[in-house]
């Protein structure tokens, strides 16, 4: 009889719990839309493996939050804001998507966040670089999770200037992201007593950098700064090494490099390059353990974006669980109130402007002698504390910040 009683009580209790939670839920599913470049230039840093990371998070959560099932839909944004906008509009207006995750090209993220604001849904941006996403383009409906151009410039550029790289020559990708990064770098270089003596803005994308490298060599600058991304950066680095840039005493500073880029270049070509990253797979037991699981799923080591997608999805699901709600503002507030402590970040905080602020790392690419495997590529030189990394709220132009 006691057995029967216990069963009954727990059945009633769980029915109450589920019922209580469902009262707050808008429907019977938590639907997450994964949006990323699945086939173009930015595919490898997020792409299909980012979807795997998201699915890992959902599996770790047991596929359900408070008994409500979690579902994933995904789409290729083709790096086009137009195509991304129409997908997200369909998702939120017709398919009841609660959260949009992934998002790589900054132009895509800015366009999507406007739609999320109109419809009051939530977005977590993991792949984009532009710091303007939580500055002039901030909305109460998105969170920018992994990194942005502000700490990239802060970390790498200030380290290089302090090591004596006083004069800079910039190779900049000729579109919004490149211009933003160039601006942030110029500010940091000048603040540290250096000077940008020349800039060349190259078309996006460019295959042959020999002409630009030659101009940078002729400038006599101490440092050649690369304010570009993906294949543009790897092509520029390969060409620089071919034209003997480092032998002639100049330093290369790549402002945005992902693990997949360094892996494509190889330690031989990329050795000694300093870069800023939000996360690296081989930092401690926690990161290694998760990376091993990721590698079993995908066959490759995760980038900081992959790890960020997993971590942010876990934070989101925990917030839904804690509040029993899928309402964008309720969940976002809960996420802001909860410090992030997991394999991705220690004591990470989501600010009112949507910026997730956490420690960043200055890394250097290992030499072929130091590297013990094809993915053993970085040594971490310095941890850049969170408050030093990101743009302080006092300088923010975000409409949610009272300045």
């Amino acid at each position, binding site marked *: 009889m006691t057995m029967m009683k216990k069963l009954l009580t727990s059945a009633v209790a769980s029915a109450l719990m589920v019922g209580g939670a469902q009262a707050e839920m808008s429907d019977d599913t938590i639907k997450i839309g994964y949006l990323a470049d699945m086939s173009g230039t930015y595919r490898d840093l997020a792409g299909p493996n980012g979807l795997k990371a998201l699915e890992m998070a959902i599996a770790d959560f047991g596929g359900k939050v408070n008994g409500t099932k979690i579902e994933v839909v995904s789409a290729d944004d083709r790096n086009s804001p137009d195509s991304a906008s129409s997908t997200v509009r369909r998702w939120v207006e017709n398919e009841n998507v609660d959260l949009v995750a992934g998002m790589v090209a900054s132009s895509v993220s800015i366009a999507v966040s406007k739609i999320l604001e109109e419809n009051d849904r939530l977005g977590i941006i993991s792949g984009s670089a532009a710091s303007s996403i939580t500055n002039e383009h901030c909305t109460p409906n998105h969170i920018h999770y992994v990194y942005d151009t502000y700490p990239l410039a802060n970390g790498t550029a200030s380290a290089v200037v302090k090591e004596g790289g006083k004069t800079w020559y910039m190779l900049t990708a000729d579109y919004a992201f490149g211009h933003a990064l160039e601006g942030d770098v110029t500010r940091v270089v000048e603040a540290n007593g250096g000077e940008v003596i020349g800039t060349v803005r190259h078309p996006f994308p460019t*295959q042959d950098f020999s002409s630009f490298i030659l101009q940078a060599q002729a400038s006599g600058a101490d440092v050649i700064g690369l304010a570009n991304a993906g*294949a543009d950066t790897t092509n520029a680095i390969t060409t620089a090494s*071919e034209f003997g840039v480092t032998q002639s005493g100049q330093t290369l500073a790549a402002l945005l490099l992902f693990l997949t880029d360094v892996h*494509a270049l190889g330690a031989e070509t990329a050795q000694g390059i300093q870069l800023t990253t939000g996360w690296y797979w081989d930092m401690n037991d926690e990161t290694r353990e998760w990376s091993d699981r990721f590698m079993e799923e995908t066959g490759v080591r995760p980038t900081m974006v992959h790890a960020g997608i997993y971590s942010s999805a876990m934070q989101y699901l925990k917030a839904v669980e804690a509040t029993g709600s899928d309402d964008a503002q309720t969940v976002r507030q809960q996420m802001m109130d909860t410090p992030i402590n997991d394999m991705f970040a220690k004591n990470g905080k989501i600010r009112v402007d949507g910026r997730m602020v956490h420690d960043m790392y200055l890394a250097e690419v290992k030499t072929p002698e130091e590297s013990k495997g094809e993915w053993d590529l970085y040594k971490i030189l310095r941890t850049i504390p969170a408050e030093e990394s990101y743009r302080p709220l006092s300088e923010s132009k975000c409409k949610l910040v009272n300045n």
Partner: protein
Amino acid sequence: MSMIFGVPLAVLSGQLLIGIINGAFYALLSLGLAVIFGLLKIINFAHGAMYMLGAMTTVLMFDYLGVNYWVALFLAPLVVGVFGVVIEYFLLRRIAGQDHIYSLLLTFGVALIIQGVLINWFGVSGLRYTMPDMFKGGVNLGFMFMPYYRAWVIVAALLVCFGTWFVIEKTKLGSYLRAGTEDSQLMQGFGINVPLLISLTYGFGVALAAFAGVLAAPIYSVTPVMGSSTLIVVFAVVVIGGMGSIGGAIITGILMGVIEGLTKTFYPPASSAVIFLVMVLVLMFRPSGLFGKEA
């Protein structure tokens, strides 16, 4: 230091040389297109994909079979050439004699399929290919640092270009080829296997693209998408030179490399558009191209 329009002469000479090197790539690629169009009247939109296949084959043969650069220089074009013959035999042959648009769409579709499948397998970050040891380093020419490998690119590309031009324009085999496409029935009457000749010509054309791919492997990121952006530029080069003109394709290729190189020096943001600007001008004043014969 003497200056030209605010640019030191030394820098300018360097840029001219770089322009010639890039032009050598354009020449090789547009030559293959011109051969295929001139002799078979096929607009080969799979040309960029074949260039990419040449580079990918080089990297994969090295990674899995240990095939070195010199062997790859012959083997990769051969493999891709055979692949081209297969495509010609099973696909292109079925639409022979139809409007150009059919071959354009068919080859475009083939290119998308090849590219998509390879993206699925290898991603887009690029495969690693180490420069052969003998080409490492370079020589200081006074006005610029000239990597040995870039010098080799000019030599190899020009040799192959000249060889191709010579075979098609000056030898008996070339005259068969040209005659076979003019009047295939008459040529078959003379006992010449015209369908075989056509298959081989297509195979040879794409092998030229693959050869350019091998040359590119040590200096550019080898990725499944490397051909798609190059293809459009190369088409513009062929249009400027005159569709089907073999000598025209070679000369225009080098010329466009130089013009693009100079634009990169004087006004970099326009460098991706300058070739198309030239194309518009040429089409306005000489619709058949700089070296084209028929209007």
